[in-house]
């Protein structure tokens, strides 16, 4: 989806320049904070009601689909919750950027979510999905 979005954003910038004011291109627009933003938790609300799936998903109405996004730059701040390996990898990356990538921004703590939905017109299921909701992010 990210690749697709970037491709479309670039395509739109080529054809309709006015659109770029809404969605700065991550590589060409110097005013964008895209590449410099540090690893942090982001929120994307998924509404089952908006998706018109509420006839079979009874609850919840939707959920905050947290995800981790951003760069792991040195020095790694305390709130980024970096592993020791990530710190070492960052240093090695600084010495040899072409060979060793930066650490990944990824979930460090996950929690379950319960979803209630119809299995068919007679039976209903309330299922707990473990490790589904991102609670915090860090550099790995």
């Amino acid at each position, binding site marked *: 989806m990210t690749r697709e979005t970037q491709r479309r954003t670039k395509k739109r910038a080529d054809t309709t320049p006015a659109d770029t004011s809404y*969605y700065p291109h991550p590589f060409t627009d110097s005013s964008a904070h895209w590449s410099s933003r540090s690893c942090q938790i982001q929120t994307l609300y998924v509404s089952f009601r908006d998706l018109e*799936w509420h006839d*079979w998903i009874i609850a919840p109405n939707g959920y905050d689909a947290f995800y981790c996004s951003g760069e792991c730059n040195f020095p790694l701040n305390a709130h980024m919750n970096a592993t020791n390996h990530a710190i070492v990898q960052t240093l090695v990356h600084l010495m040899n950027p072409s060979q060793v990538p930066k650490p990944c921004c990824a979930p460090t703590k996950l929690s379950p979510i319960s979803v209630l939905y119809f299995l068919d017109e007679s039976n209903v299921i309330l299922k707990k999905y473990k490790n589904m909701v991102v609670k915090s992010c860090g550099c790995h």
Partner: protein
Amino acid sequence: GLYVDNGVDRTEMARALTRNERREVEHEILSLLGLSSRPSRAPPGSAAPQFLLDVYKSLLDAPRGDLNLSGRDLNAINESDVIMSFASRSDAHQSGLRHERGRRLWFDVSEVPAGERIVSAELRLFRSEGSVPQRARLSVYQLVADESGDKDLVLVDSISVGPAGGWLVLNVTDPLTSWVAFPDSNLGLYLSVHLPDKPAHAILPEDIGIVTSKRLDTSRQPFMVAFFQSSGRHTTHSR
């Protein structure tokens, strides 16, 4: 839609998904939930979905309404990874069995996920308030077939019913365990009601106000609820 970070602290929609993309995302979510297709919904206000909705709210520490949960229920809820409710199917006819005027209940348990451990299962029956102000003995039996094909009844649980109305709960863990292990053995449950002064004479469940048909009131339809612990193995339908 497809979303992009706006460079500061928010995510904004870049464009809406096409119909095909929506269908693809829907299939992804159905696959995650372990469903092969989008399920059809039950009639609104049915008892079984409402019960699980109350359980769901109790998990969120919201008011429990008339859930009437016992300590055993709360333990089962806390221990469970999956809770399923099964509405009784009055249209399920078995060869060689009479309908028995509401005394036989049958549940389709074929959707129980493989590899889930059954913590407990209970049958929930609604009794109308003030129907008959006397005590009765309500027993639930498992219908079984012997080697020669003859049908027999095995006592599963029995409770004393007072004059108060509300939901009656019977433990049906053993029948569910056998139905899941041997699906062909699922012939259903049989209800038996006796008055204390006439122990040899069985009466119909509806005679003491027990609702056995969804035609009367879907919000009081009999249902079975089962609590499962996940084995950790995830089974999803292949697409």
